């Protein structure tokens, strides 16, 4: 009774779960908590309902010689102050709380669920009325109101719990409305409507099944709360009167014998607690909450054998050689990546989603996701090896020497703090100035990235900024430590086309004015052509072609680069628009399923048998490389990646990169 139904509503995830079509053991039974919860609930329900059939003693039968006895062969759980058998009484008492809580659930869902479906279907007007009334209902002090009900209708627990069900239906409504609304937003519901299904059938066939998990989770939690409330009422004397047994009153009884028979407290309390714990564990298991879903501590990276430390290119400020990134005890995500960055230049990493561009970029700062780490190779930054540095040493490099801007500026800034706070902190840390001076520098940085009303932006919070403005702030933030290298991971992907051009020209100006070096990750060849001096084309975790941007884009050697160029809808000015864009059949093979030899072979127009054997990268484009065994054949025949007669409409898939999928990008 210490828990109001309210907080159950808050603990339930409102994410709808698509109806599961799996057979066999349901997911929650694969978790220990779920097994325990389900097993104990089934046991207690069966044992309580059948208690009159098997109980060793009648509930009123007094063994006067054995009052307040400890457990024995005759009385497994001991006896109460009147010598009555506790085992028989506890299990006989179970059916009332179990059944009345079930009744409460039926009432609560019987009202809350249809109301939520109705509000979700009928739209704003209905929803506003029902939501306001349920808000009022939820703000009422449930437990105290229940006492008033008892004061009027007496100790009749079934009607009392049914009324509690009415009160709780508000909490059910609130959770279910959220789920129903987001289910309805999904397209297949619209499709079902268009197909002429009636409202009832849409709800029964499509909306309800998607809500099953959330319903089950909330039902299990509310069941536990119901049990606590019934027992609490009985504890207060609002339960079945003596000599009828009830859990709450038996604990009340026990509290009067703390001096002479503390054991009395144990059996009833443990059975009640176990039943509530079981209901909650079951709820957690159904919700898929894992107690062990705790992220491990950020562990220090293991030192990686660094191959060869002599810099091949003395002019390079950053040199990556044979870099491999892998899931710990899992597949490789990036293999044998090498490239060099000259000071004051821009290097582009291009390729489709899932080619390892972002992993490569993030490994440069030691910012790989948990469970992913550099498994080999070398990253030399200004002559210093970054692979194998401790977290502490890397922290000193981050922001001060190498900074990063990310794909989604809108979520890259802390929503809880003002822009001023977020800029002033790093400025003070990096430049050792006072608060006032730091604020001046912040305003200046904002003006440098093209923000005119810097003072207003400084006072703003991230949610008040547009995407382009937020990306400018992110760039200003990255510049607070006056870094020499900026890693830009798809810096323009999430922005409008007009804003994209502005951000790119800002980056270009920064490189020109400050001598900043940039590694830019992009799937957009237009961006690469626009801003990059050098380019490394990545496919399935490897660099397939690299060199100066001009050489690679004008005279591609690798079929994948040709295909990307052929699939690019941007046509340089003056050139004829092709009738049909080329496409690349198939998709990038996911990590762990890469073939030996050329990883692109299965999608390549020019693949031959020899492509399936391993081969080394060949020098190309001056200081660059190309990873194709047929590169000379193709060059001599002037091969081009042709638009295929069929399937050209899939061209969009080849370049348009959707939101990054889990893990690798």
């Amino acid at each position, binding site marked *: *009774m*210490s828990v*109001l139904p*309210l*907080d159950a509503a*808050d603990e339930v995830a409102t994410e709808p779960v698509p109806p599961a079509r799996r057979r066999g053991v349901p997911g929650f039974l694969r978790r220990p*908590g779920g097994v325990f919860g389900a097993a104990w609930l089934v046991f207690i329900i069966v044992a309580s309902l059948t208690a009159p059939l098997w109980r060793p003693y009648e509930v009123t039968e007094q063994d006067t010689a054995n009052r307040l006895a400890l457990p024995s062969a005759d009385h497994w759980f001991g006896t109460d102050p009147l010598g009555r058998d506790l085992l028989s009484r506890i299990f006989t008492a179970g059916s009332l709380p179990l059944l009345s809580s079930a009744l409460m659930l039926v009432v609560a869902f019987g009202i809350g669920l249809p109301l939520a479906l109705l509000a979700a279907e009928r739209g704003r007007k209905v929803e506003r009325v029902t939501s306001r009334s349920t*808000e*009022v209902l939820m*703000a*009422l*002090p449930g*437990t*105290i*109101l229940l*006492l*008033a009900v008892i*004061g*009027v209708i007496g100790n009749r627990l079934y009607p009392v719990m049914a009324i509690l069900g009415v009160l709780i239906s508000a909490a059910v409504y609130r959770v279910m409305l959220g789920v129903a609304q987001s289910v309805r937003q999904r397209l297949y519901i619209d499709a079902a409507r268009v197909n002429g299904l009636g409202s009832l059938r849409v709800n029964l066939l499509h909306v309800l099944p998607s809500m099953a998990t959330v319903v089950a989770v909330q039902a299990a939690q509310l069941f*536990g709360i119901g049990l*606590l409330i019934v*027992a*609490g009422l009985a*504890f*207060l*004397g*609002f339960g079945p009167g003596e000599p009828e047994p009830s859990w709450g009153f038996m*604990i009340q009884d*026990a509290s009067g014998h*703390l*001096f002479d028979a*503390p054991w009395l*407290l144990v059996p009833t*309390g443990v059975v*009640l*607690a176990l039943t*509530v*714990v079981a209901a*909650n564990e079951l709820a957690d298991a159904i919700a898929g909450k894992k*107690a062990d879903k*705790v*992220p*491990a*501590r950020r562990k220090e990276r293991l030192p990686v054998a660094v191959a060869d430390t002599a810099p091949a290119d003395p002019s390079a400020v950053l040199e990556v050689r044979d870099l491999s990134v892998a899931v710990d005890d899992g597949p490789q995500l990036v293999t044998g990546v090498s490239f060099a960055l000259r000071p004051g230049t821009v290097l582009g990493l291009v390729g489709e989603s899932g080619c390892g561009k972002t992993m490569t970029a993030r490994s440069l700062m030691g910012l790989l996701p948990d469970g992913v780490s550099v498994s080999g190779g070398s990253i030399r930054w200004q002559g210093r090896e970054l692979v194998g540095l401790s977290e502490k040493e890397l*922290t000193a490099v*981050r*922001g001060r020497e190498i*900074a990063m801007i*990310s794909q*989604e500026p809108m*979520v*890259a*800034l*802390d*929503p809880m703090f*003002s822009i001023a706070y977020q800029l002033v902190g*790093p400025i003070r*840390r990096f430049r050792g100035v006072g608060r006032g001076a730091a604020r001046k520098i912040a305003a200046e940085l904002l003006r440098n990235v093209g923000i005119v009303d810097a003072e207003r932006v400084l006072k703003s919070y991230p*949610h008040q900024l547009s995407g382009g403005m937020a990306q400018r702030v992110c760039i200003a*933030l990255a510049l607070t430590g006056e870094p020499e290298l900026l890693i830009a991971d798809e810096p323009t992907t999430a922005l409008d086309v007009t804003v994209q051009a502005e951000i790119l020209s800002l980056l270009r100006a920064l490189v020109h004015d400050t001598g900043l070096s940039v590694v830019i990750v992009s799937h957009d060849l237009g961006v690469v052509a626009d801003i990059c001096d050098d380019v490394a084309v990545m496919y399935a975790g490897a660099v397939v072609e690299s060199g100066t941007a001009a050489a690679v884009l004008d005279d591609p050697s690798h079929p994948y680069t040709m295909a990307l160029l052929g699939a690019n809808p941007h046509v340089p000015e003056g050139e004829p628009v092709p009738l049909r864009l080329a496409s690349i059949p198939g998709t990038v093979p996911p990590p762990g399923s890469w073939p030996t030899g050329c990883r692109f072979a299965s999608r390549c127009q020019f693949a031959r048998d020899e492509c399936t054997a391993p081969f080394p990268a060949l020098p190309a484009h001056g200081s660059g490389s190309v990873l194709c065994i047929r590169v000379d054949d193709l060059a001599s025949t002037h091969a081009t990646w042709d638009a295929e007669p069929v399937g050209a409409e899939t061209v969009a898939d080849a370049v348009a990169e959707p939101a990054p999928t889990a893990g690798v990008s």
Partner: protein
Amino acid sequence: MLAYVAKRLSLAVGTVLAAVLITFLLVHAGSGTPGAVKAGPGATAAEIAAQNEALGWNQPLYVQFFDYLGHLFRFDLGTSLIDGRSIAADLGDRLPVTASIALFATLLSAVVGVLLGVTAAVRGGRLGKLITTGAGVALSLPAFWVGVIVVYLLAIKLELLPATGYVPFSSDPTAWFNSLVLPVLTLAVGGAAIIARTAAAGMREALGQEHIRTLRAMGTPEWRIRYVHALRFSSVPVVSVLGIQFIALFGGSVIIENLFALPGLGQAGQQSAASHDFPALIGVVIVATVVVVVVNLLLDLVVAALDPKVRTA
């Protein structure tokens, strides 16, 4: 912001009116009459009818309702059917008892819960699992059972504190404090468990946010990332649950006050329910609703202060 406050205020007033209306209708829907309660058992039908007439029970419902509302605006909750005492004065004496228990229990839950939850999220591993699992069990335990165990261990076995009873602050502050320790401890077990789970989930969510990666990329010290940025991010759900917790503890006080013999609101509710003292019951519901509504309003203000999205909306 002003519109936000206005909306919340109107909802608050609506809630109190709804509570009055619901309990009023509830009392009138029942089969019992106040006359029968006041006249006591064994009274004749004529005596009961006379009492009902005197109490205005036979007037039209709306007349009685507006009459009651009129008195309510003057903070007059009527008199008890059992002993004729002023209900408003009685509840006024009882409110501080319940409020102090609920307040201290909420504060203790907050401190312990946030410490445990943040530790679970930040440390992870075995300790994190232990805390999460332990909290899952603790929040399922019946408060009255925990209370009896606490009494057994601390009052009877260790003889540290008085088992039951209440001493007003004005007569002996130390004894007052001692009389609150056990009830507060009892309520805080479940409260801290819920806060710990909320805080752990909030911290975990916060640490997985994109802006935390930005902070890492800026070389921000780890303690700052955790205890300034992530903690601030998770403060909104924690504060919301704290408010809900306070309200729940207010309800839970019925049982705790019974167990520890504390003269609070909950005890009044229990006694009025047992004796069918209708005006006292309505009074308890109204006072409890006002407390809930005021706490919710304060909570909204705190959330607005914490969350710039609400504040600047």
